[in-house]
């Protein structure tokens, strides 16, 4: 009965990823690679290098929240978001 209720109220979705969600995630990666014609290895390397650079200046999460190549009409944009974990470094940094 608990199972049934849980299912009815859509609480069970967390433990198993739906196939459409998997499709969406696979496509996101494939489209990035197609759009910028970058191999998966090069892509991974670029992510690591960007994280490295940013980490030199602030304390950040060790993976991107978002890392995507998007198309906006004729523009191709690389959109990446990284969570800053510790802002104290930022606050105390001397303003230029």
């Amino acid at each position, binding site marked *: 009965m608990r199972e049934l209720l849980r299912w*009815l109220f*859509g609480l069970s979705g967390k433990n198993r990823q*739906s196939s*459409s969600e998997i499709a969406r995630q696979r*496509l996101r990666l*494939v*489209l990035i690679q*197609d759009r910028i014609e970058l191999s998966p290895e090069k892509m991974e390397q670029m992510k690591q290098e960007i994280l490295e650079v940013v980490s030199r200046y602030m304390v950040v999460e060790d993976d991107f929240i978002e890392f995507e190549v998007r*198309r906006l009409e004729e523009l191709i944009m690389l959109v990446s978001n990284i969570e800053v974990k510790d802002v104290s470094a930022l606050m105390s940094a001397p303003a230029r």
Partner: protein
Amino acid sequence: MTGKTIVITSGKGGVGKTTATANIGAALAMRRHRVVVIDTDIGLRNLDVIMGLENRIVYDLVNVIEGKCRVRQAMIKDKHGLELYLIPAAQTRDKDSIEPSQLRELCAALEQEYDYILIDCPAGIEQGFRNATTAAQEAVIVTTPEVAAIRDADRVIGLLEASGLHRPRLVINRIDADLVRRGDMMGQKDVESLLAIELIGLVPADERTVSAANRGVPVVHDARSAAGAAYIRIAARMDGEEVPLNEITPRPGMFHKLRDLVGIKGRAYSHA
């Protein structure tokens, strides 16, 4: 009068370009427009059978381009009394028997007399694709909510963009609302955000499309078909009418869950 030429393309084969061309063409003609549909899938002609006109072919697109006949002679009038004409593809030639500039010239001439010229593009991104897309001012991309089809659609969007055909619009075909709700098919929002182009229509998976193809009568003539209704709405949007898109979202409502639970089979599609 100046009409416009719109190419219906996809990259991947079998996603519904020809079906879309026949139905959007018929739906535009039902709106009292003068319409020409051109089958550019040379060697694999199909649009004639979907429209039920295969027995009336005398001349074809290559004959017109090569000057073997006048354009009017190759135009076959639709059976339903609409101002709708088909220029069939040549069956025994290959794709490079025409050049992009030749097809553009033909369309430019047709634009003087007709409101819409729809080009049914072959699958792939080779010569046939270049012919079809070079001739058009606008593009409609057809995809299904599947990984391979969406990937190919994205490639095509990039190629069109690079060749100066901006802002293509998207038709998502063969959506199964039940699969979307169950989480086994990507929904409209997913596909839209991945491809990031304007959506012009959602066409449900509808077996009536198949029986319509068997009969050679486009499904827009079937008043009970959900896919037919969707094509009629797409034609209205093309025509500049504001027709809201009905969402198909993965979040199942209580009703659907209960319905699935007790196994009531409701209408499987939603009209969009």
